[in-house]
Each structure stands twice: as structure tokens, then as C-alpha cells.
């Protein structure tokens, strides 16, 4: 997925910083306080409890964490210490993880494959040496590498480019940009708009991005490769999509506050499906309130079976993965909502 010789060039620091602003959850950006505990569960002892992050206090009274590290105990500890997250490690688990992971790594493995080795090892110890609140390890899927690569190959043809632009809300500048080129199965080249700045001036693009994006696509085709997916949006649009109901995406597309052009068929299908589903769900919710509980349960079961059947038929673009990234996103997206 990622070439070992990937070229990262023309990286405009301001645009790159913009991605950290967009992609890193607000709760992480603000360096929240969190707690780390090292425990000896056989002896039912908390060996060390540390409050880290913003205004870190360091080691505190271990009695703030009750064992065993059940979700209820971790939540109580988080409240007691006023921290956003609690991570608990069994003493010795770091060494055991290092040994397990390092024995499985190979020099020819893709970076994604190497990362999945670590994630699988961590997940295998979730609840058995590694505990956390919130339980992120349980949320994150760890598919095998091969289907991940095959899905990537299916969705993004070789010798094409992916582009994403975020425009500042006042349309004075590009807030974030990235152009990635896939060759021989891997992302082989990554740049920002700085690579195209001589062809498409940043200020002019930002001012009139809803039409000027076509010039960007042409420049990408000339300089890199034919675009496969190009996404353009203003910063506030991204916030609305993250914070709003699931059909916000479709509404922003319709309103041209979000442009995906070109968009391959699988993406159009996916977006259309998600939008229709979201609208239908809204209507269904209204209708459902009029139905008895049994009928509602049967309807929900039917919808679940339909989704599963679509995945198993191979019609779903993420069928090979064993999980639906959009469903995962719906689970994770509340972490991206601004903290009140």
C-alpha cells in the first residue's frame, strides 16, 4: 500500500498542518489529561498510577484505580482523576508485546502490514494485559493485510491520483491539500498543492474553488497521473459532516459545498446508498414510533440481514475487508466533535 521508496515532495507546511487540524480529534489536539496504570493483576496490586498529558501530575495514589480493571472501575478512575482516558498495562506486557511483534516483522512487509502486526498483537491482549477507557482497541478492526491490499487495488486503479483539498472558510487560501499517486499497488508519491502552485495559483483557487477545482484536476493529470478521486470542501463543511446527521454528506454534495469530482462508481454508489439510507432512516424513525415494538424489531433484523447479504454478495466495495469503514466511522466520529 505504501511504497518503501515513497516520494514525499512539495509538502507545504501550512497545508500539512491543516491536515493535522482536520484529522486529529479535537480531544487529542488539546493534549487532554490521561492516566496510565501499571498493574500486577495476579497480586491485585496497582504498582504505579500516573496522570499524564496537560498539567501532568506524575505518579499519584494508586488507590484511585480499583482492580480488576473492569470498564466500571476504569470509568470510576477517570472520573476520580478528572482524566479523559485511562490505559492500564500489566507489568511485563510491553516486553511481551515487543517480543511477539518483532518476531513477526519482515523487511519486505508493507508498512500497513507491519502496523497490522502491532494492532493484532495489541487487540489479542485487550482485556488480558491491556485495558483502556474508552475501549478503542475493541473498536478498531484488524483485518488481514491481503484483503486490505486487494480492496485498495479494487477501488483505486494503478497510475491514478487521489486528491483532497480543504479550503479556508473565508476562501482566502487552501487550508490543507494532498495529492497521492498510486503505482504498482502502492502509494508511490505524495505532494501538496505546492507542486501545482505555478499552474494554479492558490489564492485564485481558494476564491473560486467550486469551479477552479477542474483546473487542479487537469494539473494533477499533467503533473502526476489521472485523478481517480478528487475531494474539495470548505473547512466548515467538514465540521458539518462530522457533527451532523448521516445524510449531511449528501446534502452538502447537493449544495455543492462539497465537490467529489471525479468520483468512481463505487464511491457514488456508496454515497448514494448512505444518503438514501439516512433519509430513509429519518422517515422510518418517524413511522416506527407508530408501530408496536415487535414490528420494529423485525424490521431492524430485516435491515441488518440485507446489509450482511450485500456484503457477502461481494457487491459492497469493502466486502473483502470483513468490516465496513463507513460503519466504523459512524462509531468513531463522535471523537471528532468539538468538546463542549
Amino acid at each position, binding site marked *: 500500500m505504501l511504497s518503501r521508496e515513497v516520494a514525499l515532495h512539495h509538502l507545504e*507546511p501550512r497545508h500539512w498542518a491543516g491536515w493535522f487540524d482536520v484529522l486529529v480529534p479535537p480531544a487529542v489536539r488539546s493534549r487532554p489529561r490521561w492516566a496510565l496504570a501499571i498493574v500486577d493483576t495476579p497480586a491485585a496490586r496497582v504498582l*504505579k498510577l500516573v496522570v499524564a498529558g496537560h498539567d501532568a501530575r506524575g505518579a499519584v495514589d494508586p488507590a484511585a484505580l480499583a482492580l480488576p480493571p473492569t470498564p466500571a472501575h476504569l470509568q470510576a478512575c477517570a472520573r476520580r482523576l478528572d482524566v479523559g482516558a485511562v490505559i492500564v498495562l500489566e507489568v511485563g506486557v510491553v516486553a511481551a508485546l515487543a517480543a511477539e511483534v518483532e518476531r513477526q516483522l519482515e523487511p519486505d512487509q508493507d508498512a500497513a502490514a507491519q502496523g497490522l502486526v502491532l494492532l493484532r498483537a495489541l487487540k489479542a491482549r485487550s482485556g488480558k494485559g491491556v485495558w483502556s477507557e474508552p475501549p478503542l482497541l475493541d473498536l478498531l478492526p484488524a483485518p488481514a493485510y491481503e484483503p486490505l491490499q486487494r480492496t485498495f487495488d479494487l477501488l483505486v486503479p494503478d497510475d491514478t491520483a487521489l486528491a483532497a483539498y480543504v479550503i479556508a472558510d473565508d476562501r482566502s487560501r487552501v487550508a490543507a491539500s494532498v495529492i497521492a499517486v498510486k503505482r504498482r499497488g502502492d502509494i508511490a508519491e505524495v505532494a501538496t498543492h505546492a507542486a501545482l502552485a505555478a499552474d494554479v495559483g492558490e489564492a485564485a483557487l481558494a476564491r473560486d474553488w467550486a469551479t477552479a477545482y477542474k483546473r487542479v484536476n487537469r494539473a494533477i493529470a499533467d503533473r502526476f497521473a489521472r485523478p481517480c478521486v478528487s475531494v474539495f470542501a470548505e473547512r466548515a463543511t467538514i465540521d458539518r459532516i462530522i457533527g451532523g446527521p448521516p445524510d449531511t454528506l449528501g446534502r452538502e454534495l447537493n449544495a455543492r459545498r462539497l465537490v467529489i469530482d471525479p468520483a468512481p462508481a463505487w464511491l457514488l454508489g456508496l454515497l448514494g446508498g448512505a444518503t438514501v439510507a439516512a433519509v430513509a432512516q429519518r422517515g422510518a424513525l418517524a413511522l416506527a414510533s407508530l408501530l408496536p415494538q415487535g414490528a420494529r424489531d423485525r424490521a431492524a433484523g430485516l435491515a441488518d440481514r440485507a446489509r450482511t447479504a450485500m456484503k457477502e454478495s461481494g457487491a459492497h466495495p469493502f466486502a473483502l475487508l470483513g468490516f465496513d469503514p463507513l460503519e466504523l466511522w459512524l462509531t468513531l466520529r463522535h471523537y471528532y466533535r468539538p468538546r463542549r
Partner: protein
Amino acid sequence: MEARRRTWFDDRGLVLAPAPGDAAATPRRLPFLGAAVHYWRTPRALWRRALDELAALGVTLVESYVPWSVHERGPGVHDWRGDRDLGVWLDEVAAAGLVAALRPGPHINAELTGFGFPDRIVRDPDIQARAAHGGPVWLPAPPRAFPVPSYASGKLHDEVAAWFRAVGEVVAPRRWPDGPVVALQVDNEPQLFFRLGAFDHDYHPDALAAWRAATGDDEDAPRAWSPEAAATCARWVRWKDELLAQALARFGRALDAAGLDGLARYGNLPPGEPWFTDLPRLERAVGGPVGLDVYAGGGALDAVRRRALHLAGSTAHLPLVPELGCGFVPYAPPFSDDEQRAVTLALLAGGVRGLSFYMGMCRDRWMGGILDEEARPRPTARWVGRVLAALAELDWTALRRRARVALVLSRADARHGLASSLVDPLPPVAGELLGLGPAGSAELARDPAAALHRRWFDAVARALDLARVPYVIVDEGAALDRLLEHDAIVAPTLHRVDRALWRKLGQVAAARKVVVLGPETPSLDEWGEPLGEDAAVPRRAGFMSPGSLDDTAGLAADLAALAPVEDWYVERPAAVHAAAFADDAGAVRALILVNPGERPVTARLMVPPGTTLRDALGTEALGDGPADPGAIAVALAARDARLFRVEARVGARASTADQKK
């Protein structure tokens, strides 16, 4: 090998010997104010333009890695053509009126896959470092984790020697004064590939053989913390410092053998706290300054200044920052130009006298830098140019900050803390980055002295700052002379102390220097053995009281007695630091103010009456007035620093750093 010294370091920078036979010529001094350019990543057609732009900006040298993996086409086969033509690039450097420092590794990093080691090297099981679990040691460096080599591996050293010979063929004829090459860096950021966890690695057979030879012990090295074998565990941690030093010395000899002798040598440490590396030992191995690389943002100005104080207090050569972040890797959020300018000034405030901006020219796997990828000046060039011009105008390397007090950094407790870490083999740098608390990674040590000692060290540093006592940080491994330079030495001590340091403290006390210890009187050496005949407390030593740990103001009041009040200090706010730099005659010529806080402030700076400050990077001039003689209000942005040229107005009394001696 020739015995002739072509270039060397002194306390101001590089010294370049005249050509042999030129009896009238004298050695030329050259400040180490450089910028990095990666020739192999720069189209050859742009080499000269980039070098000319950097020369015009005021850099005195350019530096580049010479990456093994980029040049090697197979064992013994090297490609020096096209953009890889190092010889021609060096000729262009000379033509641009510049000189060059080269870094042939073997460790390069430079965001190269495999950190510049050829694939065949990192895949060779005989060369790979060994973890405590017996397998290879992987460095998770994008775009692909790779198994790191062992610096104890004899086979690695043989391969490196062959690589250096290939470099020598190109570079030896271009050594100063025959060519522009004036300095060589020995290896790069030698810290066991950032994996300094006590029982992480290196259990390579050659390393274990060296350990057994060093300890005279037939037993294997420890692979996990054991309270019963605490001394052996701490010895293992310290021995890895020795392993690194031996490897650097061996690389140095290989450079000599490759015809690259006679040139100034230097080294660099990766960014981080000074607790985990024996800088003086590495300097002895390299035979020149070992500096500290700094990549930091405005939120780290206090830490940056502290690290510079350690460099200035501990080096036997030149306080040097071989890589000063100018731009950043694309795997982390970038720092702004304002932040990087502030960090640069904070380092200078700590006493740094040599630096190299990394990168001078943007390149693959990097963002930012002084020049863009087409060798055009980026906005960064504006502040870099101003800083370089100001340093030249001030004759910066001739100026000194007088520090009457030395704060001793003792690693005995930190070593036990590392050995007893509850999260071993997690590297301590990870603990520091995670922000675990006031004691950093020592928060997770089983040995409670590690965290407590670190808290004492920080408390003393804070108290000295609060008391406006200029100080430097002197490493426990520094030569006795570095301690004797100061009027007073403060060494926070608990029950354990490095025996050699303890003896040195006795010597400085005997030289009638003030020595302050405590809160505890050490009774054990660094291994936990009784001090025995070394147990005597240095004569007339004062002791800090246990309650001072949480009473910074009280401790500051006590420590204020160690040095008379200087002319130059910030009266308020307390968080703003001033550093005054004087010339040989003692006249203060430059002043740097650092505001590490999150809010803009107006500092009340106390100066000799009749002083004018001129912003060395801008146009503003500030002076005290008749209504408030001897006080100047200086506005500072949040997390910012300012450099001023100091002038005495006509009729005002001379301002000297030593007037109140």
C-alpha cells in the same frame, strides 16, 4: 595516515589551518553557522543556485550526509555519478565560496528507508542487533520498519570501514586546504536507534563478549530488572554508553584509515533530555564536540533553553546544535517560522555558539527549510538571514554569558530508574514525549530515587531562574575544569552519587568553591556500594533542606546568596529569562529575552542606566528614561524570544558584566 591537523574545533567554532609552506598565513577562524543540503536529492542543475543563495544568506558552511545506501550498488560497488557526484558537488561548494561538513554515517536517518544502511546490511543476521527476546530489533521508522544493526558487530565495523574507504577516495583529495571539506561528523544521533530501554538490546554475540570482557564476569548480561542484582542492572545501562563510545571511536579510526584524518570531528545526539546519554564520554570518543539536535516548537522553550545550558556547561569544545530544525519531517505537525525563530534564540540564550539549520533546502520527505525545492528562498529565509546577520555583526562566538553557578546533572539515580522501569523496554524518550509528569520517564521507575532526584534537579533549576542567578548545567562526566570555572556548584544528592563526581566535588570544595548538596548526604556510589573511604562530605558544603523541594521561593532565596545580583535581569514577570553576553573586556554586547509562557508580556528589564537595546532582528530601539533609570520595558509575544544589541548611550557609565564582582 598523516599527522597534520588541517582543521579543528576551538571554543568559537572551526579553525582552518593555512596551506603548508605558507609561513605568513595564520589559521582562519570560522563560526559553525551552517545549513544542510542533500546533494543527491537536489537536481545537479540546482546545486550552484542553492549554494549561492545560502552563501548570500550568511551561512558559513553547508553540510550533507553521504548516504551509504544511496551510493552502494553492491558490495564494494559505488555510484558517484549524476546527482550522486559528491566530488563535483564539493567543487561547487568551493566555487560558491563555502566550506563543507560531511556526515558519512554509517547511520544517516535523513528519513531514508533503512536510515541509509544498505538493504544487505540490515538483513544480515550477523550484523543485526539482538533484543532481550533474542530476535532482531526493529525500528518503526516510516515508510517501513527495519531491523537495526548492532554497533558491537565486528562484521558491521568491517563493512563500515570499506564504505569509508570508498568515501575517502572522493573526499580525501578535497580536504581543507586542498578542497572545501573542513569537518566530519562521526555517525549520527548515536543512541542505539533511540531504543535506550535498559533491557531492550544489544544482546548481539559481539556485544555480550565485550560485556563479559569488560566486567570479567562469565555470566550473561541481565535481561530484566532484578532488585537483587540492581548493581549489575545499572552497570549494564552504563556499559551501553561505553559500547556506543567504543563504536564511535572505532568509526573514527576507520575514517582515519580511509584517508580522512586531519579534519575536525564532531558528533550529534538526538533531541531529548540529557539524562540518558553520557555526552562527555562520547566527546572523548569522537575527539570533538558532541552537540544536540533540536526540533522543537514554541511550547518547549524552557526545555530547549535547559538543554542548551547543559551543552554550554558540559562540552569540552563548542556548544553545538548540529541539526536545528528548520522545517520538519512530514510525520508530525510542522512548527511555524515564528516558533523556529524563538527556539533558535532560546538556544543562543543558553549559550549555543554553533548551529546548522536543517534543512537549508527542502527535499524529499521533508517540509519547509530555508530554500524551496527549486532553490528559491522561502519565507523562512527572512528570519534565518536576519539571525545570521545579527550573529555576524555581534561577533557572537566571541561573546560569553557569565555563569557563576554550576548545576550538576548526576545520572546515578536516573540510571537506576531506567533499569527499574515498569514499562521496559519502552524507550525513555517515549516516556518523555508522553508527558508522564514532572519526572518524565522516571515516573514509571520502581526505584523511587530516580523520580525524586529529577524533581530536585528541576526544583533547583527553577529556583536559580527565580533568583536570577545565571547558571549552566554541568554533566557529571564533565572534566573537573568545567566545575572549577564557577564560583558555586549545586549538586542535588540523595543517598546515591557517582563516585567520580563525588571526588570531583571534594576537589572543587578544596579549591575554595562553594558546594551545595542535599537534601541527603550520599552514602552509596552509583552501583549502590558504600562510598567507603570516599564517603567524606566535601569541605564546608552547604545542604538544601528536604522542605525546599516544594518551596521554590524559599530555595530561590537561599540560592540567591550564591551569586551577587547582576546588572542584567528581568525584575518581572518571573517566567521571563534574560541572558547577557559580554565580550572579552566584560562589556555586555548582546541580550536575549525568552518568554516561554503562553501569554504575551511586557517584561521589566533591569539594565545599567544609559543603556540602549536595539532589536537585532528588527528596527526597534529601547532605552531607559530619566523617569525610571536602569529599567526598560520590553514587549514579548507569547512563547517568543528577542535578541538585542546592547549599546551604552554617550555619557552613560560602561555596562560590564563584572562590575559587581
